[in-house]
C-alpha cells in the first residue's frame, strides 16, 4: 500500500456527507423532468400541456413557445427549447416543472407533442453520401495528413496488412447522472452543477443568458464521475436555469439515466481502415489510417482516431485521414481518451496482425518501430519510454514463456491466449490561475477552480502546494470547485493536474518570495499571491510530449459458448512523475477497467428506424461489473522530464484506457486463431470461428 496521502474528501465520501449537485435543496425547491422528442427528425407542431398542468403540484411546462430566449453560442446542443426543430430523437422538446419529483415525472408523461416528422438518416455506412473531409478533427488537429508517398511505399512493401476495424457507439455513463440545482436571486444566478469545469459552465451561461459572468456562480464541489461527458456544459444546467427563471423558484433538474445517451455526448461509431507496409523485419515503411465516423447536424465533432498513428511508430510515408457524415443522430463528444482509445484499438490490432505476418514477436515488433521523434513534426519527444514499458511489462507478465502460435494453449474446453498493445496519450496543458494565501497564524489556503471528478485533484493540489511552500500538508487547505475561485480549465484532456498544479506551484512560490521579503515575518492579516500561467505555457514548444505505456492481457475463451473471460491485465506506464501513488494507481486501473468494457461488452446499437441508440440504460448497456474484473495491475516507470511543468507530471486520467481493447483482442486472437475486428468481442462473433479443441 502506498504511503501517499489518502483523498482529502475521502472521509466525506465514505460517510455519505459529500454533497453532489442534486443534493442541495434550497427552501421552495421545484423539480424538473425533461420531455425528449419521439421522432428522429422534423418539427414540433404543437405541445398540449393541458393534462400535464392538471397534475396536482404542476407549476409549468416549458416549451419552445414560452421558454426564456437564449443567445446563440458555439455549442448548439445547449440551445434547448428555442425553436420547433427536432434534429434527432431524444432532443428535448419540453420541460415539466412541479412541486415534487413524482409530479414532474407524471407531468412529463402527460405532455402531448404533435410532430411533423421528416425522413431521417441515422446509420453510418462506409460510403455514406453525406461523408466529407472536415478541416479539423477534435483537439484542433488537421483532419488529413499526407507525408511522402504512401501508395508507392505500400505497393513496394514485402509485408502488407489491410484490415478494417469497427467500433460501436460507446457511452460514458458516469454513476452520477447530469444534474443541476439552480436559483436566481436579485438578478444573480447560482447553480450547483455536475460538471468537469465550473469556469466553462459559468462563461457559457453568461453567453446564453446575455449577462455578466460576475453575476453567475457555478459550484461543482463533488462530481460523480464525468469521463468527458461533463467536460462541456450540458442541457441540464440550461434547463434548470430557465425553469428557475420562469417559475421564480429554485429548480432541481436531474437527467434520467435513460435520456443520457441522446443528450450528453458519446464516443461515435467508427470505421477504421488500417494499412501497414513493412519490411521482412517488421519495420514499417508505409502506414495509412483512414477513419470514417459520424456527427450530428447540431454540432460537428470528429473523433481524431487517426491521430495516434501520427505519433507512435516510424513511418516515413503515411496517410492519416478523417471523414465524417452529419447524420440525424445525437451529438457525439468526448469520451475518455477520444481519438486515442479508439484509434489505438485499430493501430495496435494492426500491429499484432503485422507481427503475425512478419513472424516477429509482438513486443519486439513495437521495439523495432520505436522512434525518438514525433514522426509528424520531426520534433524530439521530451521523454518517451515506450520500449522500457514493453520490456518491464513483458518481464512482469512472463511474456517470454508464451508460445507465439495461436491456439497453442488449452485447458479442457477453454482456449488460453495472451496479447500486448502499446498505450499513448498526449500531454496537454491549459492556462490557469490560482491563489495562495497565508494567514497571520501561518496556515495556508489554496484557491483554484479545479474540479475533482474522482481523480484525486484536491489531494494532489494540496501535495503540490505543500511541496512548493516547503510546509507540512496538514497546514494547507484547498478550495476548489467554484467559479467564485480563480478561473481554471476543466478536468479534461488529462491536463488538470498539470495545468492547475502549475498555477498553484507558481502562486505558492510567489507567496514564499513575499514571505521571504518580509524576513519571514507574517503580517497579522496574512498575505495573498495570485498567479496565472497564460504566458508560461509555450505555444510552440520545442518538444513533442506524451505519455506511453504497454498493456498485457491473458484471456480464456470458452469454445462452447464463445465467452471471453479476462484472467489478467497488466499495464506499465511512463507518465512523468506520479504525484500520488495511491490515487495515481487508481487512475491507471480505472482506465484499464473501462477498457475491459470497451473490449468485451460495451456497445450501443443505432436503431435505423427510430434513429436512437437501443441500449439506453445500465441493464442493456453493459459496463464492467465487479465479477468481470480480476487481476488488473498497474505499474509505472519513474520519468524525470524537465520539459513538462514544475512538478514534472504528465496526465494519467486517460492513458489507462488506451491500448486495453487491443491487448485483449490480440489475446483473443492468440487464444483462438480467430481475428474479430469488431468490438465488443461478444460470443456470437467468436463462435462462428471456434471449434472445440480435439
Amino acid at each position: 500500500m502506498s504511503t501517499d496521502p489518502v483523498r482529502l474528501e475521502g472521509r466525506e465520501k465514505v460517510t455519505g456527507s459529500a454533497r453532489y449537485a442534486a443534493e442541495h435543496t434550497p427552501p421552495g425547491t421545484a423539480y424538473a423532468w425533461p420531455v425528449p422528442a419521439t421522432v428522429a427528425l422534423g418539427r414540433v407542431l404543437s405541445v398540449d400541456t393541458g393534462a400535464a398542468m392538471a397534475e396536482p403540484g404542476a407549476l409549468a411546462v416549458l416549451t419552445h413557445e414560452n421558454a426564456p430566449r437564449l443567445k446563440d453560442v458555439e455549442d448548439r446542443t445547449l440551445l434547448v427549447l428555442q425553436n420547433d426543430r427536432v434534429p434527432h430523437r431524444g432532443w428535448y422538446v419540453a420541460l415539466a416543472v412541479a412541486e415534487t419529483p413524482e409530479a414532474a415525472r407524471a407531468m412529463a408523461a402527460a405532455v402531448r407533442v404533435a410532430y411533423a416528422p421528416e425522413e431521417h438518416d441515422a446509420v453510418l455506412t462506409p460510403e455514406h453520401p453525406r461523408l466529407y473531409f472536415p478541416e479539423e478533427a477534435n483537439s484542433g488537429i488537421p483532419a488529413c495528413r499526407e507525408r511522402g508517398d504512401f501508395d508507392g511505399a505500400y505497393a513496394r512493401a514485402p509485408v502488407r496488412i489491410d484490415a478494417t476495424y469497427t467500433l460501436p457507439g460507446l457511452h460514458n455513463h458516469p454513476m452520477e447522472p447530469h444534474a443541476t440545482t439552480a436559483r436566481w436571486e436579485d438578478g444573480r444566478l447560482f447553480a450547483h452543477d455536475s460538471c468537469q469545469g465550473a469556469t466553462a459552465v459559468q462563461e457559457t451561461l453568461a453567453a446564453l443568458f446575455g449577462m455578466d459572468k460576475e453575476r453567475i456562480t457555478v459550484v461543482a464541489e463533488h462530481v460523480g464521475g464525468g469521463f468527458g461527458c461533463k467536460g462541456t456544459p450540458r442541457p441540464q444546467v440550461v434547463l434548470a436555469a430557465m425553469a428557475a427563471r420562469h417559475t421564480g423558484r429554485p429548480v432541481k433538474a436531474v437527467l434520467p439515466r435513460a435520456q443520457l445517451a441522446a443528450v450528453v455526448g458519446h464516443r461515435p461509431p467508427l470505421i477504421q481502415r488500417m494499412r501497414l507496409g513493412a519490411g521482412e523485419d517488421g519495420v514499417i515503411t508505409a502506414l495509412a489510417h483512414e477513419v470514417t465516423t459520424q456527427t450530428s447536424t447540431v454540432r460537428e465533432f470528429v473523433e481524431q482516431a487517426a491521430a495516434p498513428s501520427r505519433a507512435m511508430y516510424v513511418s516515413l510515408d503515411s496517410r492519416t485521414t478523417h471523414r465524417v457524415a452529419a447524420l440525424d443522430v445525437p451529438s457525439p463528444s468526448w469520451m475518455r481518451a477520444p481519438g486515442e482509445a479508439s484509434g489505438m484499438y485499430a493501430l495496435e490490432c494492426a500491429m499484432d496482425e503485422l507481427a503475425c505476418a512478419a513472424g516477429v514477436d509482438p513486443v519486439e515488433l513495437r521495439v523495432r518501430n520505436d522512434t525518438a521523434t514525433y514522426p509528424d513534426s520531426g520534433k524530439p519527444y521530451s521523454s518517451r519510454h515506450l520500449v522500457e514499458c514493453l520490456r518491464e511489462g513483458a518481464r512482469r507478465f512472463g511474456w517470454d514463456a508464451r508460445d507465439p502460435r495461436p491456439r497453442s494453449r488449452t485447458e479442457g474446453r477453454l482456449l488460453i491466449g495472451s496479447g500486448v498493445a502499446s498505450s499513448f496519450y498526449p500531454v496537454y496543458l491549459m492556462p490557469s490561475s490560482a491563489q495562495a494565501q497565508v494567514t497571520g497564524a501561518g496556515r495556508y489556503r489554496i484557491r483554484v477552480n479545479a474540479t475533482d471528478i474522482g481523480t484525486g485533484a484536491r489531494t494532489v493540489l494540496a501535495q503540490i502546494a505543500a511541496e512548493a511552500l516547503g510546509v507540512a500538508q496538514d497546514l494547507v487547505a484547498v478550495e476548489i470547485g467554484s467559479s467564485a475561485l480563480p478561473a481554471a480549465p476543466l478536468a479534461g484532456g488529462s491536463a488538470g493536474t498539470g495545468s492547475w498544479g502549475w498555477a498553484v506551484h507558481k502562486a505558492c512560490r510567489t507567496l514564499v518570495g513575499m514571505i521571504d521579503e518580509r524576513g519571514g515575518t507574517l503580517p497579522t492579516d496574512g498575505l495573498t499571491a495570485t498567479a496565472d500561467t497564460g504566458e508560461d505555457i509555450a505555444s510552440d514548444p520545442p518538444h513533442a510530449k506524451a505519455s506511453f505505456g504497454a498493456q498485457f492481457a491473458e484471456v480464456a475463451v470458452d469454445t462452447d459458448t464463445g465467452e471471453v473471460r479476462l484472467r489478467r491485465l497488466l499495464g506499465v506506464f511512463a507518465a512523468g512523475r506520479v504525484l500520488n501513488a495511491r490515487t495515481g494507481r487508481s487512475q491507471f486501473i480505472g482506465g484499464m477497467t473501462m477498457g475491459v468494457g470497451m473490449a468485451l461488452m460495451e456497445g450501443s446499437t443505432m436503431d435505423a428506424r427510430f434513429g436512437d441508440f437501443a441500449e439506453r440504460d445500465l441493464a442493456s448497456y453493459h459496463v464492467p461489473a465487479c465479477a468481470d474484473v480480476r487481476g488488473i495491475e498497474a505499474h509505472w516507470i519513474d520519468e524525470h522530464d524537465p520539459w513538462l511543468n514544475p512538478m514534472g507530471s504528465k496526465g494519467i486520467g486517460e492513458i489507462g484506457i488506451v491500448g486495453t481493447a487491443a491487448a485483449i483482442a490480440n489475446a483473443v486472437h492468440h487464444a483462438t486463431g480467430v481475428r474479430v475486428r469488431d468490438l465488443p468481442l461478444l460470443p456470437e462473433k467468436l463462435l462462428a470461428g471456434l471449434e472445440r479443441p480435439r
Partner: protein
Amino acid sequence: MAAPQTTSPVTLHVNGVAHRRELDHRTTVLDALREHLGLTGAKKGCDHAQCGACTVLVDGRRANSCLLLAVAHDGAEITTVEGLADGDDLHPLQAAFLEHDGFQCGYCTPGQICSAVGMIAEAGEGAPSHVTPLAAGPPGVPVPLSPDEIRERMSGNLCRCGAYVNIVAAIGDVTR
C-alpha cells in the same frame, strides 16, 4: 365521489431515528431519504435498480431503495451509509475503503459499503452465491469470502471509475 387518496402517513426508522412524514404513494424509499429527510448518502444513479448506488439496509437486508415504495415500508428499520460510523470512528469497511482507495468519484461508494455490510452478513448466514462450491457445506454454515466470492456478491453495485480492484481488496481486508 371523494378524491382518491394519494398520500399516506409513513414512519421510517432511519439509523435508529423515527421519521414520520405524509408521503406521496409514488415516493420511493430513496426519494424519501434524499428529498424528505435530507439524507443524501444513498445515491440515485439509475432509478431502475440497475446500478446499486441506492443500496441501503432494510430490516438488516441490503436492498435497492430506488425500487421500494416508501408507503409499503411503513415502520421499516433502515440503515444508510450515514448510520454506519460510530461517532467519529469509521465503520471498518469505511476505513478500509479510505485506506485502499476503494473509490474515486465517490458516487457509488455509499451503495458499495452498505452492500458489503449486507453481503458479509449473508455469507455469514451461509447463503451461497453463484460461485460457492456445491460441497461448501450444509445450509447455515458461513461461506468463506474468497476474492471470487466478494467479486460475485458485489456485482450488483456498479462503479464506472473502475475501483473494483481496490473495493475487493478493502472488503477482503475486513473479512480476512
